[in-house]
Structure formats: structure tokens, C-alpha cells
């Protein structure tokens, strides 16, 4: 039976085209790859190549015909041994859609079966374990965030040979911010690797090693420099598991200081919580205390997914109690109620917590009992804990240093509005950095960041304490 040559789709969006020219006529022999016709689309004139060997038996759509629908038979091809007589056997009358039927069938089924948007299956929220119990009598050791991070890496490197650290100045220099201090001495230069200044490159190298099953910890000297590597983080690390249908992913941690330090101006002072929080396929952790830094970094290193671990230079030197336990691991994705209260809820994370904590002290003096939630993880976000708190206090203030538009606070406010609208007694106030690049001048820098006073004012506003 003669083969139908169909009007081809020549671009992702083409539905019809003009048959501009036939380059073969009836009776001509064609081989695969021979150009047989030219088709005009709205974008270009394209050549149609023969796919099978044979002889053009009949041209069905004449030269110059406009608006020929994709998949319309345009000619009949006779195979070796077939003759003109066979042309009558061709199913010319068959609707052009016949060839497309296999594609349309499932699509049509889909129309019927696809549930309404509201019923599209939701990602199941995994049940998270609570923070581990700290047995009574456990010694609490005052530890800086810097030491806690180093201890977490060292413990995980002792535990798993596949864990290694790479980044700028992590080895011989002992870390640009001394977070990797001592690791080279204990683990050697195979597992503590100094890289050239080449963020895009070494981020990709780390991800490739993770594809192969290693568990790299990639340190960015600061996350400002990770902008160079953004494509690798988002397109390679975050999306591969999905694009591979679950076959292959990247068990990798990207960590380093994030956000404003002090007087380093616009290019070195940016908070990326909202940026990475936007990306499905990443986990994003941003701890405040040393205990959380340790427990969550250990969890991040063990996590089979890419984890963005946002630290803060100003917090590195701050001291918190860390429980002295052999293996202190905290759950990623679980907020921590830093202080319980009933009059209003402040949600913050990372260095934002420093404003929240000081504001709460002031507000306590004014007779307000404020609850503070430390989000700890930006993605997946523990909105349940936030919503439960809002149901109790009916008032919400979010605090972060990042830019205000599309901030983490904006997302929380929208979710609380959708899920707990009836519980709100005041509009949510989002305290964030100002909508300006970070200035260098000391006074302007101070103004560009949130302040304790702003947080206090916000809580007074949502509790109507003018």
C-alpha cells in the first residue's frame, strides 16, 4: 500500500502552512533525505525531506496551496514493487487526523480524566519528625555558629567517606571566614579541596561529582558569588531528579555566608533566601542559632537532595548553647518556636531573628506577650506551624533582611491570608530590607536594613497599640 506523505509540523507551534513548491514531480524517485517540497510557515520557508525510499505516486496538494493543516496527506509514495495501480488502495479519504490519532487519544482521555485544577494531586507533605529529645542532664556547651558548622562537617566527614568539602580557601587558608578551620589537617587535601576562583565551574564540578554518588559540600566564599553559579544550582542541581524521572539527582550542599555583612556595599550584601526559596527541587535552610546550624547542616549533608545552606557572617561569631550529643541531627523543614506567646506572632529566620528577639524584649516591657517562630528552613516551608500560631495570636509580623518585593514574608502573608483569613485581626506586616541596593555609607546602610524599632512598630500596629 502506498505511504502517505503528511504535511509536517515544522516548529513547536505550527498548525498549518503553505505548500510553496514541489521539488519532485509524480513519477520521480526519492531517497531518504531528498528534499521533496518547500513549506512556508509563519516564520520561515522549510524544506520537507523524504523519509522513505520510493517513487512519488501522486501529489495530493498542489503547489501554492495555502493553509494546509498539519498531518494532511500531501502526496503518496510508492515503495519498491508498487505501481500506479496501487494508488487506488491508498486511504486517501481517511481524515488527516488519522495519523495523529494515537497522540490525540490519550490527550482526549486526559481532557475527560484531568481533574479540575483544585483536584490536581497535591504533593504529599511528608510527616516530619520533631526535634530529637535532648535527654535530661545533657551538657550544653557554649559554641559559636562558626564552630558548630565546622563540627557538623567534621562529624559527617568522619561518618561518611563520600563527604568532602570544596571551595575557595577552604583548605590551606583554613576558610575565608574560618568555618573550615582544621578540616585539612584532619582529612587531608583529597577531602578538603581548594578551588580556583571559579564559582560557575566548581559548582558544576560538585554537582557532577554528586551525580556520580559523592556527597560534596561546596562552600561559596559568600552567596553573592554564587550568582555566577546560579545556572548550575537551578538548572543542573535542582531539576535533574525531575528531568530524569527520579533516576539521578544531586546529593550536595551549597553553603556559605549570605546577606549583608557590614559596609561591603551593594554587590556583597544580598540575601538570597527568596531567590532559592522559589525553586522546586531545592531545599533551603537558613539557621539562626548554633545548635540549629549544627543539627541542620548535619541533616543537609545526609539529605539526598541539593540543599542551599544560608549562613551569615555576623552570626558566625555569636555564641549559643549546643547540646553535647554524639549525633545531633535536626529535621529540615521544621520551624522552631523560639518563644511562645499569645498576643502576636513574629516569623523570622537567620539573622532576621536578631531583630525579632530584641523587639520581643522591648514589647514584653510594654506588656505584650509575643510568640517568635524561627522558620529555620525556607523550603520546604513549615507553614503549618505559622498558621497554628496565627490561629492563636491572630496577628502576624514577618522579619527578614532581603528585598521587599516577592520576599519570603510576602509568601507567608499570602499563604496565611489564604489559609487563615478568618483568624486575622489585622493585616500582616512584612518587615524587610528597603527596596534599594545596599549603600556603603554607614548611616544609609543602617537605614537600608530592617531595625528593631521597625519590628516593634509593626507589632504595635498589628495589636493596635498606637
Amino acid at each position, binding site marked *: 500500500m502506498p505511504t502517505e506523505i*503528511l504535511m*509536517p*509540523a*515544522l*516548529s*513547536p507551534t505550527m498548525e498549518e502552512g503553505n505548500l510553496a513548491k514541489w521539488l519532485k514531480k509524480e513519477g520521480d524517485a526519492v531517497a531518504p*533525505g531528498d528534499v521533496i517540497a518547500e513549506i512556508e*510557515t509563519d*516564520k*520561515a*520557508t*522549510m*524544506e*520537507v*525531506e523524504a*523519509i522513505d525510499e520510493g517513487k512519488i505516486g501522486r501529489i495530493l496538494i498542489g503547489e501554492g496551496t495555502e493553509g494546509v493543516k*498539519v*498531518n494532511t496527506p500531501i502526496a503518496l509514495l510508492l515503495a519498491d514493487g508498487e505501481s500506479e495501480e496501487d494508488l487506488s488502495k491508498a486511504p486517501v479519504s481517511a481524515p488527516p487526523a488519522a495519523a*495523529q490519532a*494515537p*497522540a490525540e487519544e490519550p*490527550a482526549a482521555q*486526559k481532557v475527560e*480524566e484531568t*481533574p479540575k485544577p483544585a483536584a*490536581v*494531586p*497535591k*504533593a504529599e507533605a511528608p510527616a516530619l519528625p520533631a526535634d530529637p529529645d535532648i535527654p535530661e542532664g545533657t551538657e550544653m556547651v557554649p559554641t559559636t555558629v562558626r564552630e558548630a558548622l565546622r563540627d557538623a562537617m567534621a562529624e559527617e566527614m568522619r561518618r561518611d567517606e563520600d563527604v*568532602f568539602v570544596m571551595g575557595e580557601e577552604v583548605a590551606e587558608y583554613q576558610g575565608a571566614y574560618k568555618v573550615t578551620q582544621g578540616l585539612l589537617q584532619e582529612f587531608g587535601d583529597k577531602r578538603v579541596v581548594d*578551588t*580556583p576562583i*571559579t564559582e*560557575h*565551574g*566548581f559548582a*558544576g*564540578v560538585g*554537582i*557532577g*561529582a554528586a*551525580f*556520580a554518588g*559523592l556527597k560534596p559540600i561546596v562552600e561559596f566564599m559568600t552567596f553573592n558569588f554564587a550568582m555566577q553559579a546560579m545556572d*548550575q544550582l537551578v*538548572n*543542573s542541581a535542582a531539576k*535533574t*531528579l*525531575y*528531568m*530524569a*524521572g*527520579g*533516576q*539521578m*539527582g544531586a546529593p550536595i550542599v551549597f553553603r556559605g555566608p549570605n546577606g549583608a555583612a557590614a559596609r561591603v556595599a551593594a554587590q556583597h550584601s544580598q540575601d538570597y533566601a527568596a531567590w532559592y526559596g522559589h525553586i522546586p527541587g531545592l531545599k533551603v535552610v537558613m539557621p539562626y542559632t548554633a545548635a540549629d546550624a549544627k543539627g541542620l547542616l548535619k541533616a543537609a549533608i545526609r539529605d*539526598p*537532595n541539593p540543599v542551599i545552606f544560608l549562613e551569615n557572617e555576623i552570626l558566625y561569631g555569636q555564641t549559643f548553647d549546643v547540646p553535647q550529643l554524639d549525633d545531633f541531627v535536626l529535621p529540615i523543614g521544621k520551624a522552631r518556636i523560639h518563644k511562645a506567646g499569645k498576643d502576636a506572632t513574629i516569623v523570622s529566620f537567620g539573622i532576621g531573628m536578631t531583630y525579632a528577639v530584641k523587639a520581643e524584649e522591648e514589647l514584653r516591657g510594654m506588656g505584650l506577650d509575643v510568640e517568635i517562630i524561627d522558620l529555620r528552613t525556607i523550603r*520546604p516551608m513549615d507553614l503549618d506551624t505559622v498558621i497554628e500560631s496565627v490561629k492563636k495570636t491572630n496577628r502576624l509580623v514577618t522579619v527578614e533582611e532581603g528585598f521587599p518585593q516577592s520576599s519570603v514574608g510576602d509568601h507567608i502573608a499570602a499563604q496565611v491570608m489564604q489559609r487563615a483569613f478568618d483568624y486575622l485581626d489585622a493585616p500582616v506586616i512584612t518587615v524587610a530590607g528597603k527596596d534599594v541596593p545596599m549603600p556603603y555609607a554607614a548611616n544609609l546602610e543602617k537605614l537600608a536594613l530592617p531595625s528593631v524599632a521597625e519590628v516593634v512598630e509593626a507589632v504595635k500596629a498589628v495589636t493596635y497599640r498606637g
Partner: protein
Amino acid sequence: MATAARKTAPKPSSAKSRSPAKPSSTAGGTPAVRTPKPEEFKQEQELSAYRDMLLIRRFEEKAGQLYGMGLIGGFCHLYIGQEAVVVGMQMALKEGDQVITGYRDHGHMLATGMDPRGVMAELTGRRGGYSKGKGGSMHMFSKEKNFYGGHGIVGAQVPLGTGLALANRYRGNDSVSLTYFGDGAANQGQVYESFNMASLWKLPVVYVIENNRYAMGTSVSRSSAETDFSHRGLSFKIPGIQVDGMDVRAVKAAGDLAVDWCRSGKGPIILEMQTYRYRGHSMSDPAKYRSKDEVQKMRSEHDPIEQVKKRLLDKKWASEDDLKAEDKRVREIVADAADFAQADPEPDVSELYTDILL
């Protein structure tokens, strides 16, 4: 000995006649490597190369056809014309070696032995595809076959492939990472960041630059200040050679050399495969940036499959009928893959939310 060596050392002109490419420069202490002579294939090697290249050719023709029918959506970059590169390189690999490439990836997948059904079903976005229909033409992976994708951002696979090599060295095995990219990607900054680290750390990675002469629609001479891509590693002391990428025997010989180079701990090496793509950059490319004569000349004078076919016939290692039968077998495999890819259902809607995190 020294005198003898001088006597037998080939003059530049005879070196040229021996190999199609210049030996690599030794500037800046980069080790000198010469393009090896095409390997003399045995009968079974020729037959197997013929079969493997033909499978890719027919598969891609069918993919083009299914695209035309609207069964494959989005972007679809065909490999027709470049078949000798992946088939020859694959002949040089052993179990455990890894392969990674960009988005013109169907040929690489078939060469690593991935199932044509699974590849075609991914092209049609069906559940039986390698990525359950969630990756498409540009994104497929196979742990089993050590194929690491399938990457859509030009050049991004180069650091990733370098990372695979880092993992090999870390584990102390002798596997080699074969990292493919095109002449277009060769102008991306991350490629040179990777070259630097690979050479600094002596990583076992073969950078295979598939120079098909056009980065989408921009010819090499219009996009590249240095059009000899085998020299692109000189600043990093990475040797490179130019290889006739239309001759599967030349590719195999260069592949053997490069893979041995890496396995013996000498670090990375660059192979510039001089090849040609017959089709447009993607399905919607009318390819107006080159003449029909240029394409026709390549097809008629340098086609990788026709070269093997001619040798098989000349040496009487196969008859026309044998090759026709081979062609029929290949067509059947491809037809079966196409049937499967059309009959297989789309992914279940529940797949929307799976495989985002483990």
C-alpha cells in the same frame, strides 16, 4: 639511536599526508599528541559500526517524522550526519566509563546502548520514556548505561562531566568521563573554568568537541576567534587533536588514544571531532545560513555510513543483500520503538508531583 630516530622522524609534509590534522602545539609545555591513523577495522568492527550508525540515522529520521506529525513536541535536535562520532568513541570505552552531553543527545543515548523504545517514548512524552515523559528530547539519563544526560543549557554539561571525572579520581577507579560539547559551547566561560580544574587536578576526562561547523546558525568562523578547537586547551596545558569525525575508524583510533591518556593518569585531553549535521539546528530551523551544495557535498562525499558501506562491499565482507537485510532489521527496531512511543500512555497525572525531592 638518536641518529636513527632523526632519520625516521617524518617531515612535516609527510606527517600531513599521514594524518588529516596538524599535531598539537607544544606551546607553554602542553604535551604533544598526534592524531593517530584511522584504525584498520576488522570485519565485525565494520559491521557493528555500520549497524550502530544506521540505527541512529534511522531513529533520527523517524523522530523527524514523528515531530512532523505533531507526536513529538517542543525542541528536537537531530544527530543525522554526526553518527560516526558517538559510535567510534563508544567503541573505545569500557564498562564504567561515563558519557555526558548537551541537548543533541539521541545519538549518544543509542550509542551507549539505551533502549530505542525508552528514548522514543521520552520524545513523545510517554510514561515508558527514560524520564517517565518528564524530560523530553533534551533530558534523558541512564544510571545503568552510565549516561548522565541530556543537558539543555549550552556548555553546562562540561563542569558536570568534569565532576564525574573528579568522582572517578576520588574513588581511585580508572573510569573515564567522556564529556561531549559542540563548537558553540566551546565559547562558554564555564568550559574554560572546567579545563583549568581538570588540568590542575589531572582529572580523567576526555573533552569531545563535536565541531559540526554551526552553533545554531552561526558558522564557526563567525563565532570563534580560534577555529582550531584542538588548541582550546593550550592555556591549560591540555593537549588536543583534530579528528576526521566523519570516519568512524579515525574516531575510534583517537578515542583509544584519549581514553588511554586519561587512564594512565595524564589528565584531560581534547578531541576536536570535525563533523557535520545534515539537518537544521532544530526542527524549526530552515538552515538558510549555508548552501544546499555544501550539505550535498558532505552527504555525497563524506557520509559516515556510506564510507563503511563502501568498505564492506569493496572488501566483500558483506553483499548488497546482507546490508539490505541489516537495514531492514534496523528499520524494524525503529518502527517498534515508534509504535511503542505512540501506544504508550502519557504519564499518570500523579507524576506531576513526584521526583522533585527524594
